[in-house]
């Protein structure tokens, strides 16, 4: 099905199942421990062994030799497979850094060997016995130092690195009120609950891999490339995933190591990345340095807005696209954005939840708060005044729907924004109290997505697609979609996901998963409806699927009878026309936060949070809310604690475990509220939905920074907003 024109009325609009607050259909499996995650598969053909990965001890250089003799002789050891043994391998197309093979070291903790033994403990013990001789080379590890050597990147994730409209320089120079500030965001780690893990089993030249992947088809292709085999020879399964946040978008070393190790010993092998390896072995959200300039007239109209961002990556990598939202979020006739990329020899920088917008809004939305203050305006009013219903870089191109101002208004009302005072004007005990606001913005991305649906004689509808559920609720919304389309109750729908034998879906990422994968299921269901109607001799356009029956006029046939003993199958996918080019599809929101800052110690604690989201049709308000509060929580970590600390001498992230890299704990997260605006966007898809999974993160951290300013009068522009950065500016207490 090609989606080329805005959706008209369709069966989804009935909203009998879609849009209902239905609990996760996989919830029972999860809370009872029956949902099998990658490391929990115990039943491949043959007894499996354990592989323990070894990471490089240097950041850059070459391996001269690996002495694995002692490890090979250690108790229980079956095999040591080294990066020298497998030799140079073709890199998959989605990764910048190579995962395994050859002597070159591109970053710290790059996989250099896997030790395979009968037990996990034996493998881990023997791994420590490897003697690796390195030729270390000097590298570049400081973004600040590399900034001056940064260049205009050829590729900025499919976008232009630079944009320019009107005369930014002139308009900024002549503006009545101006802001020109520098901001920075640190490297961040996905830190999902479930580490990367794989179990590989070969049958002749065919490989079955149970793993933890957000994108089944991408992994399958890249694994085939690295192994040098046909993609068709690989079956990849990832039915349950304990979080990803972008860290499982692209093939990872555990899968490659497990595959090579299993081949080497002729038995299945299981490999998990140990937590301390994850920060430096895998990908991370790269640090940014951002410069923002805004010029406005005294009445608050923006006349010039400029956003530049510098980030680093390995050679061949991409910039963190931190300026993207600035191209679309606020009005202003004269504008410029630019991204510059420096070469760094840290681990690969790549997508983490809301790549681009998350760090971009961390800066932009502080700048907007600062600008509002310079203008003497309320920050809500300032944002509303500079709303635009057209793509400001292409003023002929409208947004399909854009209710940022509605989100700001409703949020302000619900949050009690009018009670916000001047900076450092409100205290409770030792706490300085403040409120902050920020806009949320994230584009709606569209990827093709296919599915297969089968209705059997018992009246059960089975959906198969390689879509993944990374904790987001994919199982549930897909079941809702199929149930709605066929007029069945949700308990008549079985959903099977994350298996490469199923039709290729959009996968989970970029907040495109929900809208795209359900649209693919919609397309398959349309096909099934047609098949059923054809079998009954109904005109499919007029047939009504409702209450377990298909009806035409006064003739009604139970669906189970209609499909007969053979059952009927529908398979199709959604492909996208040019509606996302003719129109701008984005999601919007407003974040409101109240913080308390200890006037003695500078500790910031969140007191209240509210997000109001305008993101198209909400397919399930329960799972969508979970997405948004989870994202808000991530924004708290991003604002207050999360930073991969770089050792710029040795070239690695030092705090590479969950003790050193502090994500929020329960005590950090207070009352959170989420409101979804009533919307249905016919331009986005037949589902009229968009994503919310990343929107909830976009802007939160800046709202916290702005609340800290309101509480303390201290303006922080460099994340994380830790107490050491503000202590000297807090009131004297001695």
């Amino acid at each position, binding site marked *: 099905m090609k989606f080329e024109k805005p959706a008209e009325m369709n069966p989804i609009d009935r909203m009998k199942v879609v849009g209902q607050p239905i609990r996760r259909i996989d919830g029972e499996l999860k809370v009872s421990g029956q949902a099998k995650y990658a490391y929990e598969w115990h039943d491949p053909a043959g007894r499996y062994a354990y592989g323990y990965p070894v*990471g490089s*001890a240097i950041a850059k250089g070459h391996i001269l030799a690996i002495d694995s003799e002692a490890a090979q002789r250690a*108790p229980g050891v079956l095999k040591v497979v080294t990066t020298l043994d497998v030799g140079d391998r073709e890199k998959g197309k989605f990764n910048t850094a190579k995962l395994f093979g050859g002597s070159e070291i591109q970053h710290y903790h790059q996989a250099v060997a896997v030790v395979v033994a009968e037990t996990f*403990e034996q493998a*881990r*013990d023997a791994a*420590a016995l490897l003697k690796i001789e390195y030729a270390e080379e000097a590298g570049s590890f400081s973004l600040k130092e590399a900034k001056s050597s940064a260049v205009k990147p050829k590729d900025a994730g499919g976008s232009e690195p630079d944009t320019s409209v009107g005369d930014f320089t002139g308009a900024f120079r002549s503006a009545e009120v101006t802001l020109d500030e520098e901001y920075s965001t640190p490297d961040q780690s996905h830190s999902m609950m479930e580490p990367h893990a794989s179990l590989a089993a070969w049958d002749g030249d065919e490989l079955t891999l149970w793993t933890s992947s957000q994108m089944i088809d991408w992994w399958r292709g890249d694994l085939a490339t690295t192994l040098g085999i046909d993609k068709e020879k690989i079956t990849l399964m990832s039915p349950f995933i304990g979080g990803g946040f972008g860290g499982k978008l692209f093939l990872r070393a555990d899968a490659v190591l497990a595959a090579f190790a299993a081949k080497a010993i002729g038995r299945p092998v299981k490999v998990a990345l140990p937590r*301390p390896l994850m920060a430096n072995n895998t990908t991370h959200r790269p640090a940014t340095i951002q410069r923002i300039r805004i010029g406005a007239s005294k009445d608050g109209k923006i006349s010039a807005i400029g956003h530049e961002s510098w980030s680093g990556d390995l050679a061949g990598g991409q910039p963190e696209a931190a300026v993207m939202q600035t191209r679309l979020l606020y009005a202003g006739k004269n504008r410029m954005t630019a991204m510059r990329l420096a070469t760094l020899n840290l681990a690969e920088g790549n997508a983490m939840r809301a790549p681009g917008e998350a760090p971009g809004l961390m800066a932009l939305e502080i700048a907007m708060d600062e600008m509002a203050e310079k203008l003497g305006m309320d920050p809500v009013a300032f944002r509303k005044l500079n709303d635009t219903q057209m793509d400001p870089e292409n003023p002929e191109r409208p947004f399909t729907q854009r209710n940022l101002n509605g989100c700001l208004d409703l949020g302000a009302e619900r949050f009690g924004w009018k009670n916000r005072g001047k900076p450092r004007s409100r205290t409770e005990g*030792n706490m300085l109290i403040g409120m902050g606001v920020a806009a949320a913005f994230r584009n709606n991305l569209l990827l093709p997505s296919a599915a297969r649906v089968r209705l059997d004689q018992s009246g059960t509808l089975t959906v198969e697609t390689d879509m993944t559920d990374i904790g987001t609720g994919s199982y549930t919304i897909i079941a809702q979609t199929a149930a709605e389309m066929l007029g069945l109750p949700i308990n008549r729908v079985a959903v099977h996901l994350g298996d490469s034998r199923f039709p290729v879906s959009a996968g989970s990422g970029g907040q495109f998963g929900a809208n795209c994968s359900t649209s693919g299921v919609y397309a398959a269901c349309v096909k099934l409806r047609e098949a059923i109607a054809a079998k009954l001799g109904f005109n499919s356009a007029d047939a009504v699927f409702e209450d377990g029956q298909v009806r035409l006029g006064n003739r009604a046939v139970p669906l189970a009878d209609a499909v007969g003993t053979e059952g009927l199958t529908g398979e199709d996918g959604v492909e996208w026309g040019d509606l996302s080019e003719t129109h701008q599809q984005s999601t919007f929101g407003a974040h409101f936060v109240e913080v308390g800052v*200890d006037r*003695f*110690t*500078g*500790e910031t*604690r969140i007191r209240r949070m509210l997000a109001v989201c305008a993101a198209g049709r909400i397919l399930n308000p329960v799972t969508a809310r979970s997405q948004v509060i989870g994202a808000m929580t991530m924004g708290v970590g991003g604002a*207050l*604690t999360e930073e991969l*600390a*770089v*050792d710029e*001498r*040795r070239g690695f992230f*030092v*705090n*590479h*475990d969950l*003790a*050193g890299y*502090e994500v*929020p*704990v*329960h*005590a*950090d997260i207070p009352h959170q509220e989420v409101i979804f605006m009533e919307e249905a966007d016919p331009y986005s898809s037949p589902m009229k939905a968009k994503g919310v999974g990343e929107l909830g993160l976009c802007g939160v951290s800046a709202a916290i920074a702005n609340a800290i300013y309101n509480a303390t009068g201290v303006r922080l522009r460099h994340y*994380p907003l*830790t*107490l*050491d950065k503000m*202590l*000297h500016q*807090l009131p004297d*207490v*001695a």
Partner: protein
Amino acid sequence: MKAFTYERATSVEQAASMAASNPDARFIAGGTNLLDLMKLQIETPLYLIDINHVGLDKIEPTDDGGLRIGAMVRNTALAADERVRRDYSVLSRALVAGASGQLRNKATTAGNLLQRTRCPYFYDTNQPCNKRQPGSGCSAIGGFSRQHAVVGTSEACIATHPSDMAIAMRALDAKVETVKGDGTRRTIPIADFHRLPGDTPHIETNLERGEFITAVNLPAPIGGKHVYRKVRDRASYAFALVSVAAVVQPDGTGRFAIGGVAHKPWRVDAADARLKAGAREAARAALADARPTEQNRYKLDLVERTLGAALAEAKG
């Protein structure tokens, strides 16, 4: 984790003699720190003596009006003890500020005193660390040192002691009771129990090989207002950037120990003497010899402000 021999001791005497005859032996109690270190091959004992069944799990009054806390008393039980909460509440507060409920259920009094630093370089076996591999160098000096010690440091090590409990015990002048392999017993004031790093940061306490902690004694209650103020980036489950254990008398005199700033619980007599003059004077006296790094210089200011918060709480 290296393969190791595991044996269970059922009495203190047995544990001590097992340790005396096995130079590579380590005692294991709650295991909340040791097991992590073994998994990472930072500690590689060949012989583990499980002391969870030796008794020593009572809190009893002493003849001089204090309390004798058995070495195996769990952190949860110690924090909840009515006498501790009434007469030594700084200790109770320090305990519940540490770790998590699950960890405190396992962690013991003696084990808490013996926990090792959380310096990230100590935990990464690719990196030089004098504490892990004597003579290899200190990676934290000149590296990521935001959490590290500012006072009592050496050229060899700037790690901190991570315990909250020990900070309160230092403020209370606790004494550590031990028995050696040959059966002799001694009492070590907590001030002398932990060592500064000097040239030998791998030697963290003055315990002798095989010496076994049997109890920690608290002197008779000293009254006053007890405050434990722990400062950290997140609200729970994090080690202190700075913590202050203070006991303040109605006349404003008192005593305080500082956590997160040194290789041992940090307490300075001259600083106690200045407490009445306020947080600034007392903190400056306590940190007179501080040698912070660029990344942890803020701790000097933070100690003063945290002590200020503690004194304000004591007054309030």
